[in-house]
């Protein structure tokens, strides 16, 4: 996670954070349990996006569409069928990944900005369908009062469930990023032409990355439904995609954990500053300007940069 830290220190840091998160609901009021749950969901969404943007260098500009597809699929299966919850929880991400495959198949044929523009168009198409199809998706009303199984009736249980899924997904993403697939993906980001010349099918590799990323976006979407018990078309609107994109930039898109930090900052801003003014995005705007000037590698990138000399010193002494 922090590649400059030694393996054992990394492990202790992760364990420490996990312990704090595990005892959090016992110490904190319900409101803060909710906020942290929301941060977990958003963090997973941002982390899934970063697989394509940060590691893949792909202009995945409408990631929110897949988040929404996952959420809606899960919500529709809970309300329109009598299948158990876990079936929907598996099917939601799979439908998101299939959507990712379909849209990605067209997008990887284009480069850079054209990729992003096509994805915004195709993603907005899904938004329009969801927005208009009143009889099926509830249109702009969305779907409310989605039933939750008895196990997930308390906010503490919801918190632990989301945390568990988040940890599993992060572990999976970490393994993927460190695998030959992940290494090759980063090589493609740096130099697609060279990759083709060493025998890598660049398009197929990028498409695989999109499918994986959209699968995890679908998981995040399903988690959102578990937490909020409603869905609405804004989940697929492109402004949300922009927000996730900003989370990755803010946290540091060349670090593994950066997007999570970015998600935490933005969710906290929205909730705490949003209490005082609906123009909280104004403050976000100012933060972004400062970020571009002073922390081009993101918050996590900055912290690692600061830590590096101290770690080096410590290892030299030790």
């Amino acid at each position, binding site marked *: 996670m922090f590649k400059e830290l030694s393996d054992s220190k990394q492990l202790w840091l992760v364990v420490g954070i996990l312990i704090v998160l595990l005892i959090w609901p016992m110490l904190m009021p319900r409101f803060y349990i909710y906020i942290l749950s929301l941060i977990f969901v958003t963090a997973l969404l941002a982390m899934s996006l970063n697989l394509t943007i940060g590691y893949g260098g792909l202009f995945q500009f409408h990631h929110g569409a897949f988040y929404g597809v996952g959420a809606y699929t899960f919500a529709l299966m809970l309300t329109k069928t009598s299948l158990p919850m876990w079936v929907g929880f598996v099917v939601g991400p799979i439908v998101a990944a299939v959507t990712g495959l379909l849209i990605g198949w067209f997008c990887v044929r284009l480069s850079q900005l054209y990729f992003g523009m096509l994805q915004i168009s195709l993603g907005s198409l899904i938004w329009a369908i969801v927005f208009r199809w009143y009889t099926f998706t509830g249109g702009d009303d969305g779907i409310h009062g989605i039933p939750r199984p008895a196990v997930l009736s308390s906010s503490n249980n919801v918190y632990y469930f989301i945390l568990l899924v988040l940890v599993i997904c992060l572990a999976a993403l970490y*393994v*993927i990023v*460190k*695998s*030959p*697939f*992940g*290494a*090759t993906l*980063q*090589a493609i980001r*740096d*130099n697609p*032409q*060279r*990759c*083709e*010349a*060493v*025998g*890598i*099918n*660049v398009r197929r*590799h990028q498409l*695989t990355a999109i499918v*994986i990323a959209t699968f995890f976006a679908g998981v995040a979407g399903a988690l959102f439904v578990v937490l909020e018990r409603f869905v609405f078309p804004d989940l697929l609107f492109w402004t949300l995609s922009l927000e996730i994109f900003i989370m990755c930039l803010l946290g540091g898109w060349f670090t593994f954990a950066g997007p999570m930090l970015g998600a935490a900052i933005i969710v906290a801003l929205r909730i705490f500053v949003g209490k005082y003014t609906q123009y909280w995005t104004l403050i976000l705007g100012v933060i972004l300007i400062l970020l571009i000037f002073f922390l081009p590698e993101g918050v996590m990138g900055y912290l690692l940069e600061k830590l590096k000399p101290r770690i080096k010193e410590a290892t030299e002494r030790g």
Partner: protein
Amino acid sequence: MLQVEAVHKSFGDFTAVYGANLTVEHGELVAVIGPNGAGKTTLFNLITGQLKPDKGRIAFKGEEITELPPYKICKRGIGRSFQIVNIFHRLTVFENVQVAVLSHKRQSSNLFSPARSLAVEETNRLLESVSLANKASNIAGSLSHGDQKILEIAISLGNEPELLILDEPTAGMSPEETAATMALIKQLAGTQGLTILFCEHDMEVVFDIAQSIMVMHHGQTLIQGKPEEVRRNKEVQDAYLGGVEIVEGG
């Protein structure tokens, strides 16, 4: 091993390659020479699939590869380096070569095992053979230009190609670096038995090490033959060398 027959390629109104022919036999060290703009790099891009020819035919080991995408041509056994340094700048030297080795071992799509424990031995051996082992953990973008060009070659070796295509391997190098690179190429061709096709500006070097030379002029093949034949050829002297016999005794 490689046959290029009457290949044409134009960009808009400009014809870059106009009837190029080239034959590379197994185990040979073949050079393509010609003035700037003669179409050497375009020809290499046509062979390795970065560009598609308008006309003509390219065959490798008896099979046509004319319409194949670059990654398939690479899998058939052709590796290449680029004239302008084309490496993975943000990755370490080790990772640069490892990407190619992993691709060769068909591990690129492996999602579940940690990359740092795969193909380590092969990658290190390769870096050893091009004398970059002591810089393995450096970020590739921070290397000197000469080392980056060597890294280029190392990456192309990662796929264990049967035919290695080097586009001006010594471009921008100091005389010492050039000599070292040429020694490396000789060694690859000699001890490792690689078939190598390269282009190069330094005539002395070309006539010294190449077993066969192809001369390009205005996108056309003037001649391909042994160094002595090429040196004696009147057409080459007139067209390419402008009548000045600078290669005499070179």
